């Protein structure tokens, strides 16, 4: 009875983080993918993969309320997506800062916490604490006073992650945070994100080209290709049968001795194997 009551009074407190029902997505007259039905549970770590132009970033734009679906339903924490949802932290694709930007990293992270508020926030001690905490939780406390323009690609990604975290979100959307990093820094960043998922229970979607640095930490994979979307546990989605059905052409998933996978075939074999 109590459960039923709380469900009816606060529908956002229970249920999945994301629920999509026969979702059609795209731009006017140019559908990107269609008929997607899936659920992402709270606190899950999910990789979004697929070839270039398949609509991975489009999924993020829908969740952020920057774009509307062409058809079907999409819910984020039980609500229709809306722009400016403070429960979502976001790191955009190809996100960089001009090397000429002489601003301390912590100033940007503070804006992640309170950047939408009016007034100068001179006496806002909470925003400073939130920034310090966020930087600490991504292992970047030492970057706080460094200039944004002088940070390396890996350092910047941590600062952006802290900026997204500073608003204390329930969901993180990370669009290709690994794309400019070498293998070692990729693995380090994945470790940081995985730790955030575990310790804070923050639902995390991460767009990636290469599934291999992530594969051991993932709860789910959203695989978008050829206008179709497949969602499920990595070992269920990343099989020759499932990807062949997704692409509509023969695709083979190969495993090496260290657990890495290589995807051969599909419409863009180079991307798939990347």
């Amino acid at each position, binding site marked *: 009875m109590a459960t039923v009551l709380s469900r009816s009074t606060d529908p956002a407190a229970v249920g999945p983080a994301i629920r999509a029902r026969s979702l059609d997505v795209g731009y006017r007259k140019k559908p990107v993918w269609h008929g997607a039905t899936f659920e992402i549970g709270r606190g899950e770590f999910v990789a979004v993969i697929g070839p270039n132009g398949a609509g991975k970033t489009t999924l993020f734009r829908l969740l952020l309320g920057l774009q509307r679906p062409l058809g079907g339903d999409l819910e984020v924490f039980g609500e229709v997506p809306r722009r*400016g949802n403070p429960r979502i932290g976001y790191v955009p694709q190809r*996100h960089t800062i001009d090397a000429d930007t002489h*601003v301390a990293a912590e100033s940007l992270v503070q804006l992640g916490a309170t950047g*939408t508020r009016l007034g*100068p926030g001179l006496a806002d001690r909470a925003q400073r604490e939130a920034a310090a905490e966020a930087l600490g939780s991504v292992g970047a406390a030492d970057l706080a006073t460094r200039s944004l323009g002088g940070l390396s690609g890996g350092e910047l990604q941590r600062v952006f992650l802290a900026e997204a975290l500073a608003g204390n979100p329930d969901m993180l959307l990370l669009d290709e945070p690994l794309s400019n990093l070498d293998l070692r820094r990729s693995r380090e960043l994945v470790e940081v994100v995985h730790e955030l998922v575990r310790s804070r229970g923050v639902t995390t979607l991460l767009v990636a080209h290469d599934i291999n640095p992530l594969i051991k930490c993932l709860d789910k994979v959203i695989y978008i290709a050829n206008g179709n979307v497949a969602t499920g546990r990595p070992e269920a989605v990343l099989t020759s049968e499932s990807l062949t059905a997704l692409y509509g052409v023969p695709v083979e998933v190969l495993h090496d001795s260290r657990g890495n996978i290589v995807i051969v075939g599909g419409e863009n074999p180079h991307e798939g194997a990347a």
Partner: protein
Amino acid sequence: MTAFSWNIVTDLRSMWQYAFMRNAFEAGTVVAIVAGVIGYFVVLRRSAFATHALGHVGFSGAAGAVLFGVNPVYGLLLFTTGGGTGMALLGRRASTRDIEIGTVLAFMLGLGLIFLSLYNGYATEAYSILFGEILGISDAGVLLTVEAGVFVLAVLLLIYRPLLFSSLDEDVAEARGLPMLALNLVFMLLLAVAISFAVQVVGVLLIFALMVTPAATAVRLTRRPLYAIVVSASVALFSIWAGLFVAWYEQYPPSFFIVTIAFAIYLVVRGGPFVLDALERLVRPSGRATGGRSAGRFTPNTETEAER
């Protein structure tokens, strides 16, 4: 007129016996603070070209006002706010704006030229719009400057965090729900007002000295935005006061001294560390550890550039 003494307070007092000097110091103070503060956002948003263009657009407005016998500042305000609105609506991405701004700019300058040639008065009017006429500000002009300055600073204070957020990280700020078009529009309008009044002091051609140079100096001295804004306003303020002070004793245009002092401060701040560094290496050629550390401090980008 009294001669220069080393007692600066006495010197200032003797200058301030004259109304035109009092007005120059008062209007100059307001303009310096406003330009220094908004200049920080100009540097952060890379709107230097838009600033430059707004000044030139303002020139046409001022020339038109002179032609119709109106106070030039109203012509400036009309044209700069119109131009600023146009620029804001053309596109919010600074990187894509240069071409459009340049196109409009060229046309507006042509318009200014025809206004000037239609006006059969003296060339001094054009000269003072181009290079400023800080010693010719009336009591009413000071009052108007103070009102406009207070207005610009109050709005900037109110939208400080959203403006800073959108300047530093446009994509995330937009996803977080900030109205990017409205913020950009408000910023361009504030910039237009600030420029219109700064033109009285240094003119449209020298507007950079107040709008860009002090902020470009400040970001080299501190990485905290609020500190940088204070430093930027202080540099602009010092440049104007010192420029007026020197111009009192040396009968050359105050604008020249103002821009020269601002530039000199910039040079010292940009070049100083390298000079110190070189000196340190000269004095201690074997002290690689200390030399290397300070070199790293002043050129923090060198080791990480390759990764980006």
